């Protein structure tokens, strides 16, 4: 069993120093444009102190907290995929040389990240994307390098948001593994401290460089109590029982048409999703025509171009595009990668401008399956 330690809040200063000494760029939560986003941080002073977020379908607002908590909120509009799989990147350049041409692959950038404040659902999201980019025959070397070098400092959730449902997806709120260090913040009238544990040899080594002391039993108990409180606070639930078959057997459910009436097909849900990995490529040239480049850009199954084939889009209706997204996320992802593509982070609900809620959509399909699907309605295999 891992020895749990206690770190005072000013211990974070030292953590930043130690990480920087070891060549890490610290990335973590900070307030910008009325939201908590992930960005490069200079010091713990950049963290959102005494701030929480209120979230519901299509609504996100920052609110002050009475305490000086540094991690008293849940997840914002961005996810770590922004750093592990940047939304816009050049893959290579090509130069014409007479009738010939040569291709120069993009040099991988050398930045190594320390991600501070990674939530359990986000650790699961990274593991899900790992399967896409490194789990198959072909690997994305840039992703692999960034991911392998990234130092993960998890923060155990002690509050849950209005659109959180990690408990339903079995992805949180407690991070069990996949981190180098995990922090649980305890803040009340008497004290402000972190119960910390290492999850890897690298994490132990970093912790050893900090001013920690062994955690007291009551501190550990308090940490557990706070995580349990978050688990009990989930804003949403999703019944995952038989959800794969439920969706696979209902491609023509009237609900798809109903949701298409509300859906803007704006792609926000896919862009904020921490597991959505789709991209497109743009082959470009300059005016001289002698220089060409290929760029890879974050894409979405909600665009018409996504399924373009011979004169038209295969998924021309919003109905089919929403169905593709939800069915992929919750059903065919399991066929493809052996696990669900949803972590229950709730971003797709919060950041949908018209508050479409996948938990509600699944429930609606489950509540009214067409004849012959009774077994699924009851949740039996």
């Amino acid at each position, binding site marked *: 069993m891992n020895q749990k330690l206690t770190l005072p809040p000013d211990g974070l200063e030292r953590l930043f120093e130690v990480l920087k000494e070891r060549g890490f760029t610290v990335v973590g939560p900070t307030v910008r444009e009325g939201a908590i986003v992930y960005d490069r941080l200079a010091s713990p002073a950049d963290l959102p102190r005494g701030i929480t977020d209120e979230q519901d379908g299509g609504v996100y607002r920052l609110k002050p907290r009475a305490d000086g908590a540094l991690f008293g909120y849940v997840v914002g509009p961005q996810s770590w995929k922004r750093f592990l799989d940047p939304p816009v990147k050049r*893959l*290579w350049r*090509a130069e*014409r040389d007479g*009738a*010939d*041409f*040569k*291709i120069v*692959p*993009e040099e991988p950038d050398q930045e190594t990240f320390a991600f501070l404040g990674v939530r359990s659902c986000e650790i699961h999201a990274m593991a899900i994307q790992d399967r*896409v*980019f490194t789990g*198959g*025959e*072909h*690997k*994305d*070397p*840039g992703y*692999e390098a960034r991911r392998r070098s990234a130092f993960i400092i998890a923060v155990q959730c002690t509050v849950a948001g209005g659109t959180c449902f990690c408990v339903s997806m079995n992805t949180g709120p407690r991070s069990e593994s996949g981190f180098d260090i995990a922090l649980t913040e305890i803040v009340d009238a008497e004290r402000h401290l972190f119960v910390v544990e290492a999850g890897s040899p690298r994490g132990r080594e970093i912790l050893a460089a900090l001013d920690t002391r062994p955690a007291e039993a009551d501190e550990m108990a308090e940490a557990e109590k706070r995580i349990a409180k978050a688990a009990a606070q989930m804003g949403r639930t999703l019944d995952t029982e038989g959800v794969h078959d439920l969706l*696979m057997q209902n*491609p*023509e459910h009237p609900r798809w048409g109903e949701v298409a009436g509300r859906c803007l097909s704006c792609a926000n849900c896919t862009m904020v999703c921490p597991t959505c*990995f*789709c*991209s*497109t*490529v743009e*082959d470009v*040239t300059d005016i001289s*025509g002698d220089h*060409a480049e*290929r760029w*890879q850009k974050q*894409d979405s*199954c909600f665009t018409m*171009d*996504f*399924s*373009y*084939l*011979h004169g038209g889009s*295969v*998924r*021309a*209706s919003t*109905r*089919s595009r929403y169905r*593709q997204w939800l069915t*992929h996320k919750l*059903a*065919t992802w399991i*066929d*493809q990668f052996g696990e669900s593509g949803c972590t229950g982070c709730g971003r797709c609900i919060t950041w949908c401008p018209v508050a479409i809620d996948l938990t509600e959509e699944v429930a609606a399909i489950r509540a009214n399956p067409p004849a012959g699907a009774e077994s699924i309605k009851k949740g039996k295999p």
Partner: protein
Amino acid sequence: MIHPMVPEVRRIKRVYRENHNTVTLAVEAAEAAGPACLPGQFNMLYAFGVGEVPISLSGDPAEPGVQHHTIRDVGAVTRALTRLKRGDSVGVRGPFGSAWPIASCRGRDVVLIAGGIGIAPLRPAIYALLRERERYGEIALLYGARAREDLLFGEEMELWRGKYGVQARVTVDSAKWDWKGNVGVVTALLPRVRFDPAHAVAMICGPEVMMRFSVLELKNLGMEDRNIHVTLERNMKCAVGFCGHCQYGPTFICKDGPVFSFDRVRSIFGVREL
């Protein structure tokens, strides 16, 4: 490690003009002993400055040092590719994807149904079958095209017919009065060839609608789903499972396809806009 979306620049060894809008580019094979290509697989071809598209390999998989790609001019990239000349360079990634089940055809009859440019991905399968002709029973090739001027590989079809006893039948959707061949849908040719549906393997490649009615006819004749193989097509950008574009239900066409045994896709084959 090089990113799998970086093409290798290769030289075009020969260009065959197949018809008014289709050419076959014979491209030198990778210098390093790259993976052997199997019948049914495809490459990603990049025309400098214009873009990249998936193109099925259409040549003899056993021919060393060269890979054939039969390309129809249907858009900007394929137009640029069909205008390339011998000695020009082209970007190549691949081969990718699944293969026709040649081994499972041993001792059986084989029915190949091709529609339009769909004859190209079937041609490597035909080469593979004819290389060991004696291992297989009847081989029937049913080939439907839009019109006479769109037909491909006419001379080879004669060779397959004459030298190897392939029941090669061609039909077009419409024809001028001087056409002496068949006119009608490709499945109308099925009653006109000999094969035993109970002991046959079918491979179909063509537009999705054409494959839908071909599968239906083969099933009507008593063929089992697992013996029918189809190729599927979706938009494709990366060919290595990263971009997500080619998803077809639970599958990625680039990794799990393009060749699928019909029993694998049966449940989703008829779903619209999938």
